[in-house]
């Protein structure tokens, strides 16, 4: 899992039909330097597209899980009997209230 800031949303019309209504977010993983109070290193601005059923919004911090965990995580959203194979590999599993890094208080959302 990793800690990330929600920076945007992604929407599409053409998709795997069972994913209708599943919200997609664009998130940016935190780099160690940012957590310690500095800026992100140059060139490190890769985003990750994640599914969200918890209702996270832009500007919030979230915890993202990959792989099997992400597929299981979105299960409550899917119709009963949907096969366990589904085209999702990253999902929000927690919305962050606060985090603390070493002795310094981290950003709160």
């Amino acid at each position: 899992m990793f800690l990330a800031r929600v920076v945007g949303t992604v929407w599409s019309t053409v998709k795997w039909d069972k994913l209708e209504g599943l919200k997609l977010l664009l998130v940016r993983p935190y780099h160690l330097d940012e957590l310690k109070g500095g800026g992100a290193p140059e060139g490190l601005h890769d985003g990750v597209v994640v599914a969200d059923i918890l209702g996270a919004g832009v500007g919030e911090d979230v915890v993202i899980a990959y792989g099997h965990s992400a597929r299981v995580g979105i299960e409550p959203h899917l119709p009963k009997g949907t096969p366990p194979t589904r085209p999702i590999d990253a999902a929000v599993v927690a919305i962050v209230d606060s985090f603390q890094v070493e002795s310094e208080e981290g950003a709160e959302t």
Partner: protein
Amino acid sequence: MILGSVIGQVWGAQRSAQLGPEKMLLVAVLGAPGADGERVASGRVVVALDDLGARIGETVTVTWGSGARAVLKAPENRKVLADAAIARIVDGSSAGEE
């Protein structure tokens, strides 16, 4: 697995029910040792669930995927949402010739 250093903790009341009740720790991934033998943080940070009681400053190994679910001895492991867990609190490690 990766070797990492525990740097902090994350709190969030709104979490998926199946994520598990364990603490969410922030772990800075450690790279290969440099010439002086010290391992330096790579910059990547992961969130791992902790069932072992690791503390800030300790070196740990983090295991992924099914390995993480095996650590979090939930009754139904396939339903556990965590994909990373602290597997060991490390006492020491070495690289190259002693």
